[in-house]
């Protein structure tokens, strides 16, 4: 089947050589899915699981030979992340299905006047198994998505302890991929998936080296990433600049508010029992339940119980909030 499709796609591409684009061959069940593909631009990696009409930049109806095509003539010169999705019949164009057999989208990178041929073969979900021509960044993205799928489905694998073990292993695998991948935007995509914000607090050296490695990368995605990393040099310079400016009264008021909040936080902490405070300290260091249990010689269930109590007393809802909780 693929042997027949590749020449077909190549000939389609060559016929429209002056009008390069993204060419997708996919056999959709048109009794369930409308034969229209929607192309969205994802300008920010935090919006990967977001859907809105403002993201959609083009549509393509299926050709008689089952091909969808988007022209890349007016794309930005630099690589951008795009999402192609399909809508179920009777559903609005802006409809996204995340996970499960009905997952209805895939991502790819493209730039101005690039030609990308994609063939979908039968797979686990609506989109199927995608084959990109060449071994470029889209093939790397596909390779990454396979790893992410394993990472995402770890809850299937067994007991809680096993899950934690596999989770740590897969987390490091994805981080290693980000470190070694030669395509900067694919590499960065991996870091966004593993919640780099939290990991930065545990392993800042990795991120400093990462930023150094890609310091010449000027894409908007990297700009956002650099800004979001805590403790960046930018913040230090900003603080110094403010210190020497004439904003002393504002700084004084802000500092008082900060102190008041800090005192409130301290008061809240006094509500924690001694054991809860020990668990709190270790959670704040980013340690897992298993590590805490081992360090305090208590069971994992007891750690969980303390964690729930801490969340309730400090009025927080996640570990991320706990790590960011100012004392």
């Amino acid at each position, binding site marked *: 089947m693929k042997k027949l499709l590749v020449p077909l796609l190549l000939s389609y591409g060559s016929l429209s050589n002056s009008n390069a684009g993204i060419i997708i061959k996919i056999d959709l069940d048109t009794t369930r899915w409308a034969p229209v593909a929607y192309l969205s631009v994802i300008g920010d990696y935090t919006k990967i699981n977001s859907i809105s009409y403002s993201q959609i930049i083009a549509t393509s109806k299926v050709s008689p030979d089952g091909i969808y095509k988007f022209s890349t003539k007016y794309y930005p010169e630099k690589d951008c992340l795009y999402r192609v999705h399909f809508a179920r019949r009777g559903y609005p164009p802006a409809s996204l*299905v995340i*996970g499960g057999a009905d997952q209805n989208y895939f991502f790819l990178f493209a730039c101005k006047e690039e030609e990308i041929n994609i063939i979908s073969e039968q797979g686990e979900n609506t989109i199927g198994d995608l084959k990109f021509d060449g071994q470029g960044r889209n093939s790397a993205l596909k390779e990454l998505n396979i790893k992410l799928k394993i990472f995402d489905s770890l809850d299937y694998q067994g007991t809680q302890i096993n899950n934690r073990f596999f989770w740590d292993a897969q987390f490091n695998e994805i981080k290693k991929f980000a470190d070694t991948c030669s395509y900067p935007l694919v590499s960065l995509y991996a870091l966004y998936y593993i919640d780099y914000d939290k990991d930065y607090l545990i392993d800042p050296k990795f991120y400093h080296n990462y930023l150094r490695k890609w310091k010449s990368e000027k894409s908007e995605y990297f700009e956002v990433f650099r800004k979001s990393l805590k403790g960046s040099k930018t913040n230090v310079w900003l603080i110094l600049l403010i210190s020497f400016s004439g904003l002393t009264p504002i700084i004084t008021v802000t500092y008082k508010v900060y102190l008041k909040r800090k005192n409130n936080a301290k008061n809240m902490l006094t509500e924690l029992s001694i054991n809860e405070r020990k668990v709190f300290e270790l959670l704040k260091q980013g340690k897992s339940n298993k590590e805490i249990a081992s360090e305090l010689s208590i069971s994992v269930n007891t750690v969980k119980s303390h964690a729930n109590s801490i969340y309730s007393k400090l009025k927080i809802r996640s570990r991320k909030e706990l790590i960011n909780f100012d004392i």
Partner: protein
Amino acid sequence: MKTIIRKAATTLILMTMLGSTIFGQEYARMERIKTLQIEKTANKPEAVTNVVEINVTDEFNYLKIKVQGNFDAGEILVEIVDPLGEVKRDFSIKNGKVVTETGLNMKGVVIAEMERSYRNPVKGKWVVRSTSKKADGKILVYSLQIYNPKADLIELEQIERETDSHLRF
């Protein structure tokens, strides 16, 4: 209190006990539909949070959660949070009801769905949390819990397939 979000009397259409013996030794419990009706709050720009709780007990060792957001205005973030407070997955919807800069002149309802499955899930209260701003629409939450003695993935998936038709939106 003028609460902007009504739980539409938590339209619990069915809290089906599919019987403890339907699948031989397996147990399955399906909860459908919990609907959160989010009403438009144009004059209240602050974000509003609402939750649907799913109680996961020792009875079950498999959990599947499906959430669908269906909105024609506003912004909304939907998260699945486990009993330890960790956000397992999220999605967001933005619908400004305006013609976009894309020039495609598309507008109207925006729908996002998310489906996640967990074997041996953490016991306790799982939460589907929505944070909405000037939003007008609804969120449907389905959950399926199964007990299978061996927690065998193939068997669990087979049970899931048999009951999945009930979980379609």
